[in-house]
């Protein structure tokens, strides 16, 4: 999400609550271009990657927020990169379909999130990836996510891992790497 759009969206959200008498568009009136009214500039997706550019940041594996496992045991337990991609994709599919948390993902660049979440998990599992995304604090700033949201996401990750037949102890070993991130990915 473009950082400058977010505050506007957050600020605008409460407006929707008490029905603000928005003049019903008449035939003579053209539909209002709210992006234009609010001065919102939508960045274009990169034609090659399909991603929306983000503000510059320093890249590095440290942004993944956890040290990778040693050896290839965990990578194999997750079915290598192909297995990991199925699991992270499935986690996000379940999350954007979950009424409890789907709204948080709306208006965000899921193309980028699919790539970076895969990279992060692949890096942590020592399955041969570098993490090129932002650090967890920066990536989740302003999302207002709660412990309940985090638990919902964890449930989806657990379901995805179960469907991929990852053993339960291996599932928990990955969760052990993610659990200490709670303070950086949630705000309330």
């Amino acid at each position, binding site marked *: 999400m473009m950082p400058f759009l977010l505050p506007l969206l957050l600020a605008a959200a409460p407006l929707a609550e008490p029905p603000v008498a928005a003049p019903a568009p008449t035939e003579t009136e053209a539909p209002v271009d709210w992006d234009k009214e609010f001065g919102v500039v939508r960045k274009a997706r990169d034609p090659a990657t399909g991603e929306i550019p983000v503000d510059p940041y320093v890249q590095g594996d440290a942004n993944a927020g956890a040290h990778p496992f040693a050896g290839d045991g965990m990578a194999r337990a997750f079915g290598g990169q192909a297995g990991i991609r199925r699991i992270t994709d499935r986690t996000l599919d379940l999350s954007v379909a979950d009424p409890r948390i789907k709204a948080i993902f709306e208006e965000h660049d899921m193309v980028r999130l699919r790539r970076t979440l895969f990279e992060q998990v692949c890096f942590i599992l020592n399955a041969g990836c570098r993490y090129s995304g932002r650090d967890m604090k920066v990536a989740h700033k302003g999302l207002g996510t709660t412990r309940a949201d985090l638990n919902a996401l964890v449930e989806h990750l657990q379901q995805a891992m179960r469907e991929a037949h990852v053993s339960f102890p291996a599932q*928990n070993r990955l*969760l052990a790497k993610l659990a200490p991130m709670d303070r950086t990915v949630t705000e309330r």
Partner: protein
Amino acid sequence: MPLISGALALAAPCAAREAITFDGAKLILTNGITSVEGSGGGGLATWATISGMGTNRAIGVSAHVTGVELPDFRLDTHGVAIGIRDRVELSYARQNFNTRQIGAALGLGKGFQFNQDIYAAKVRLVGDLVYGPGWLPQISVGVEHKRNLDGAVVRAVGARASAGTDFTVSATKLFLGASVLANATVRLTKANQFGLLGFGGDRKAARSVQFEGSLGYLVTPRLVIGGEWRTRPDNLGIAREDDAKDLFAAWAVSRHVTVTAAYVDVGSVATVANQRGGLLSLQLAY
């Protein structure tokens, strides 16, 4: 426009004061079960967990019934608990302890029951069972105020008082990397047989420091097996009291229903040795 959005941004914190409701959003089984004293825990031990399925922005509630079948006695407990913002737990439990034939032998009458009310409060000080640094457990302090309803009888047995208050400090952590759940609790207590035989006695009137340890292994997301050990005071001259131990399996049938079965060994109870039996507990949580 900037003015309006500025004002709205200022108003935003008010949203934090929205009505606190049920969210039922704890991870399955991480609410724990209910101890024989009604507080959130294992079966014998009080844990640092806060009852109910509510997370830090919500409330949760739970109710339980537990039966412990021993060779010569039977203990039944039931109770309710409320968890507020995953921070504070308030609980009430009633214990009914049936002495069966032993009641007659002790001159109390066959099937005599000791009854006790337990009012408890627990506050989570720091840490989290699941999240946060792997080395930092969830740490809570608690008080359990116990009121034995058979004061004359427990005094006749040698107890100094019919009511008493336990103080607990518990540390509980789910070590995900090993799929292990561990708890350690220190309890200051003068209760005889949890308070069912009153508080303090001829051998010791004051509180003593006791220990409760629990170790569990997560077999599946819904099944944990393990064991517990609880040391207890030995205040009464006429009735020796031993440590209590159990081996348990707790199964989350659903997010809201947890069934626990355990093999329990409480040693000597009211002059009768070798009290080993089964515990069955049902907990509903929202």
